[in-house]
């Protein structure tokens, strides 16, 4: 003991000693506060991580909702068709990594066994990427040079009582072309395509007598990081025979969906922060209520209001920062789970997530401490110390 005599302890050391011991003695309350802050921070981290990755991820995801770019003959030219070679070159102007799918289309009316129908010639591989939302009974045609098979729309199949595996005779009066095709798949598209019959582009060109021609091409382009209007202008500039334009309905609704999803995530984050704040506040109020006598004693032996505030804010901050640190780790793991579940890919860590999580979470913790600290400051020693 004699060795301890004269040992000075700095005020900071004493403060830390009081701080840590006061937290240690209230493990359950500390854990509840820590856990609340951690959950809040984890959800904010996960949402923020997804949020900052969302534009890229969602844009790719939304490409599942069909074409958003059109290339066709220039309206000024008066032509209704354009060379597929020209279309192919125009499509090549889109950076490959931004091109989700593309297909030229050629259309004409043909007669089937039970009536007339619109025949569309397409690049099936491109069409499949362009229209991943199609519900296909049977199979997609996967080989472009398959001139023995066709796919038909669901309504058309119903009207003409056709099933997968049936054969259907396609007749084009103008060209005298007649051919029996096997139905490989029946597509439900929810659009006009439900009433059409689809064959490979070369076969359609042959049936319709439009070799080397297409009416237009539809493209699905990832809009994230792409100036789609500038792209349209470049294509039209390079190929005066072509019109190139974004399909506004899809492009703008894509943007609106993204904005709405971002807004929704922000609302969820605010709700989570509010719940965290209330939870932390309730716990801290309980802590202050349990400690009124201790606070009264501290005031009686010389602690002023500043000391009391410092003690409670430091306790809250310490738990808050620990909770946020744990929340960042848990949140990043949660973001990976979300990324895999929703986008099928991992979410990359972005530094911006740190302040976005840390600042509001710690602010929420401090906000939660305001009322309890006011309660602590208002403790009257004479009242609480006389209670048995």
């Amino acid at each position, binding site marked *: 003991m004699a060795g301890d005599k*004269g040992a000075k302890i700095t005020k900071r050391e004493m403060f830390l000693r*009081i701080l840590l011991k006061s937290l240690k003695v209230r493990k359950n309350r500390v854990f509840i506060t820590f856990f609340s802050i951690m959950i809040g921070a984890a959800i904010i981290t996960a949402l923020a991580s997804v949020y900052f990755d969302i534009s890229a991820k969602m844009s790719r995801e939304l490409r599942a909702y069909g074409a958003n770019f059109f290339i066709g003959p220039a309206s000024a030219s008066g032509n209704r068709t354009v060379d597929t070679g020209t279309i192919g070159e125009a499509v090549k102007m889109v950076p490959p990594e931004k091109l989700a799918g593309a297909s030229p289309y050629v259309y004409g009316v043909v007669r089937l066994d039970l009536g007339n129908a619109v025949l569309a010639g397409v690049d099936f591989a491109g069409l499949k990427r362009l229209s991943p939302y199609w519900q296909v009974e049977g199979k997609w045609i996967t080989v472009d040079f398959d001139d023995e098979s066709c796919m038909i729309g669901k309504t058309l199949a119903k009207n003409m009582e056709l099933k997968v595996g049936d054969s259907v005779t396609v007749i084009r009066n103008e060209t005298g072309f007649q051919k029996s095709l096997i139905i490989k798949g029946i597509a439900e598209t929810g659009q006009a395509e439900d009433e059409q019959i689809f064959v490979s582009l070369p076969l359609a060109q042959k049936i319709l007598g439009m070799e080397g021609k297409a009416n237009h091409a539809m493209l699905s382009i990832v809009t994230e990081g792409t100036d789609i209007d500038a792209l349209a202008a470049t294509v039209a500039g390079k190929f005066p025979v072509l019109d190139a334009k974004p399909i506004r309905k899809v492009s703008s609704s894509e943007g609106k969906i993204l904005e709405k999803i971002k807004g929704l995530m922000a609302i969820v984050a605010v709700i989570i922060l509010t719940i965290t704040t209330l939870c932390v506040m309730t716990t801290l109020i309980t802590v202050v209520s349990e400690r009124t006598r201790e606070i009264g004693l501290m005031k009686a032996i*010389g602690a002023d209001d500043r000391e009391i505030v410092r003690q409670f804010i430091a306790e809250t901050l310490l738990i808050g920062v620990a909770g946020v640190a744990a929340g960042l780790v848990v949140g990043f793991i949660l973001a990976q789970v979300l990324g895999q579940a929703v986008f099928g890919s991992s979410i990359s860590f972005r530094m911006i997530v740190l302040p976005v999580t840390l600042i509001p979470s710690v602010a929420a913790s401090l906000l939660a401490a305001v009322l309890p600290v006011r309660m602590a400051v208002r403790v009257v020693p004479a009242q609480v110390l006389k209670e048995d």
Partner: protein
Amino acid sequence: MAKIVLETKVLTKRYGSVTPLDSIDMQVKGGEWVAIMGPSGSGKTTMLNLLSLLDSPTEGEYILDGVGTATLTEKERVAVRREKIGLVFQQFHLVSYLTALENVMLAQYYHSMVDKGDAMEALERVGLEHRTDHLPSQLSGGEQQRVCIARALINQPAIIMADEPTGNLDEANEEVVLELFKELHREGRTIIMVTHNPELAEFADRVVRLHHGKVVKDA
């Protein structure tokens, strides 16, 4: 002649229509040991709370060490209490998660510098040098009260104010605490002590008796 360290003029405390302390005029000289006695509800604790600046009077004047306390802010009242008064409580009021030594150092911490050696000496003085690292729950009632006294003494206050310091102690511990107060008195400290215990009051220089909030005897 010793100077007056504490003086009240018509000191009154009211809670609505209840007046637990009514127009107290009192003077205490430096080094004096004053015992405040009276039945339950006579206003003893209320008076001690006012004198130790834990509470404010409704009316009247309280001058401590030549300074009127009526105009002091709460922060100034805390500072005066910290500098001039050592408090001893009937229920000891130790911080449960701090050791005996840390409880003493807590008063140093709020006062100025924390000096472990001084805190150890204060505990040695009350005979607890072997219990410094024990938590209050590991100490007997008498030991807790001695820690409370060590804490009250650590900042060398001129005035010790004690509320029933032996109220929760057995006879043996009461004796130990009494001896400590006698020693403090010999050192020249001013002691204001609320007590029910006539044996303790015997050692006081003066006994102020309260009844229904008024001084009925001061001798």
